[in-house]
């Protein structure tokens, strides 16, 4: 790290190699698009290099880089959002939510699945969430941020974070159960 901060690019390349999967995975979780995730993770590394002097070690380097890529993804998602009209899902959320009406999934929808198969199902289910719901879920479940931190990052109220997270979880549970039923037919 010190060597990279002194401008040693070979040392920085080593840091990239060590953390590249994690940074890419976070971008992919948020963007749901391989190409965009690669581009944004690369951009995060370029910014990381440019701001390396600012890294003081309050958090781990991986966490510091993850925050950079999350911010880049949020900017990109906001651009996407401006380019499209509101989805029906978002209207549901605004009008009180359909998640409160969903029946509780009582069986474990992923029981007995291979790890790879489980990942594929989660991947497909995440892809069916709106970006607001997915982002809240990713920031809470993967980044382990508290409600108030998510609210700050996303520029919304804690109440909105809570309702989006609740919706996202319930929707995921329902989708994973549906996916299991589909595969069982």
């Amino acid at each position, binding site marked *: 790290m010190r060597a990279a901060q002194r401008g040693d*690019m070979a040392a920085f*390349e080593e840091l*990239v*190699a060590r953390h*590249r*999967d*994690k940074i*890419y*995975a*976070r971008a*992919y*979780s948020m963007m749901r698009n*391989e190409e965009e995730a*690669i581009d944004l*993770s*690369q*951009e995060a*590394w*370029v910014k990381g*290099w*440019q701001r390396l002097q600012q890294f003081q070690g309050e958090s781990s380097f991986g966490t510091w880089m993850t925050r950079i890529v999350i911010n880049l993804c949020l900017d990109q998602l906001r651009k996407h959002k401006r380019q499209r009209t509101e989805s029906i899902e978002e209207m549901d959320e605004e009008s*009180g*939510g359909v998640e*409160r009406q969903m029946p*509780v*999934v*009582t069986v*474990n*929808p*992923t029981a007995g699945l291979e*790890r*790879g198969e*489980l*990942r594929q199902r*989660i*991947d497909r289910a995440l892809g069916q969430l709106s970006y607001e719901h997915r982002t809240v*879920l990713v920031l*809470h*479940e*993967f980044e382990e941020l*508290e*409600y108030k931190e998510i609210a700050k990052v996303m520029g919304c109220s804690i109440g909105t974070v*809570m*309702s989006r*997270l*609740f919706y996202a*979880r*319930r929707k*995921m*549970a329902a989708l*994973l159960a549906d996916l299991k039923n589909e595969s069982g037919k």
Partner: protein
Amino acid sequence: MMEYDDQLRLQAYLDGELPESEARRFGEQLERDPEAAALLEELRRTGECLAGFEEGVKLPETREFYWSKIQREIQRREADAAPAASAEASGLAWLRRWLLPATGVAFVALIGLLAFRGTRAASPGVVEVTQSDSGAFTYHDYSAGATLVWLSFPAEGEIGEPEDLSTLE
């Protein structure tokens, strides 16, 4: 069916976002509410499913190819930034070359001006008295090729001490 606010409170309980006293009270209620307990289990299980999901996501590019793109972009941006930095540096050089000497000259001129004005302020009438009220006049005899100069002392208008005046008389 649970109220929506209670559902959200249940989630906050799961996430450890409720204050301790409220969490304890809520935990006691859950034991008597199977619907709430079932929902809590669903939320918990969903979280468990997601855990470890990202660990399986791998960058679909080789280390060398991925790094080469990052390195190229870093170098491109540094090259773009170099002319701007160079322009800034040349601006500073110009400043050092011209502005600083000019400032020095201006400073010296200012000091000179202030000194001159200070001198004038210290003796405002001497020069004028000397030139216009000295009482001196000349006679020039061209045929003799001589010039006579009369000086009255003390000069008219000059403030002298009374004893000096009497001595001259």
